[in-house]
């Protein structure tokens, strides 16, 4: 699925990475636990999280995750946006809960990691 479709589906707002909306994602991982995100071995992942801090971006950088959706109106700080831009990442903010966002993406065909 293209990021553009994810944004539409979640009625969401792109905060960083406007140039990469044609990028494809295959899997979604929904977690606030960065320890867990660091164990993922799959590629083309969309991370859904309610944890909006600098370590969310750092963890994604190390895990080769370029696509992050912050659920439940969590906002990315300017430092987070800067680090995301340095790493060519897409940051998306959405109002929906983790449950609703996960359900919509699952139904639309994104695969689970485990």
């Amino acid at each position: 699925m293209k990021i553009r479709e994810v944004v539409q589906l979640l009625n969401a707002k792109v905060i960083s990475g406007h140039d990469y909306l044609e990028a494809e994602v295959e899997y979604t991982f929904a977690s606030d636990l960065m320890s867990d995100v660091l164990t993922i071995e799959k590629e083309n992942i969309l991370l859904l999280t309610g944890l909006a801090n600098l370590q969310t971006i750092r963890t994604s950088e190390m895990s080769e995750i370029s696509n992050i959706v912050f659920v439940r109106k969590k906002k990315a700080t300017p430092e987070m946006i800067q680090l995301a831009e340095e790493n060519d990442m897409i940051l998306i903010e959405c109002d929906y809960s983790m449950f609703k966002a996960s359900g919509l993406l699952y139904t639309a065909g994104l695969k689970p990691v485990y």
Partner: protein
Amino acid sequence: MNFEFNVEGGNFTKAGTASSQLKKILKQLNVDSKVIKRIVVALYEAEVNIVAHAYSGKVIIDISTDRIDMVLEDEGPGIPDISLAMQQGYSTASSAVREMGFGAGMGLPNMKNNCDELTITSEVGKGTIVKMAVCLNQN
């Protein structure tokens, strides 16, 4: 090729800067991207452990043609029982660390999973030394 980075205990905004710089270096050296990921995930886990559990530390990196050696030395409380600490789910992380998205007791097992060699030595009340090595040419 040698590099050294300092790590500040407790400072989560800086956690990962060594791993981030190493990632850029390895990319420039054209190391395979899957191997890079294993290396930087292991180093990041170790770096975050110093930030989360120790007072200060340093990372010493040695890159040769076929392997990378990473040594993390910290001043901190040390680990009383290393085999217990290696168990999945064992964590003494503070609530502040958990709020940052860490402290699930998954870091040391994940380091072991991503490294070809891992040795940990520790002295209670003094500090911990983590040595990791990864082969650069794996197919």
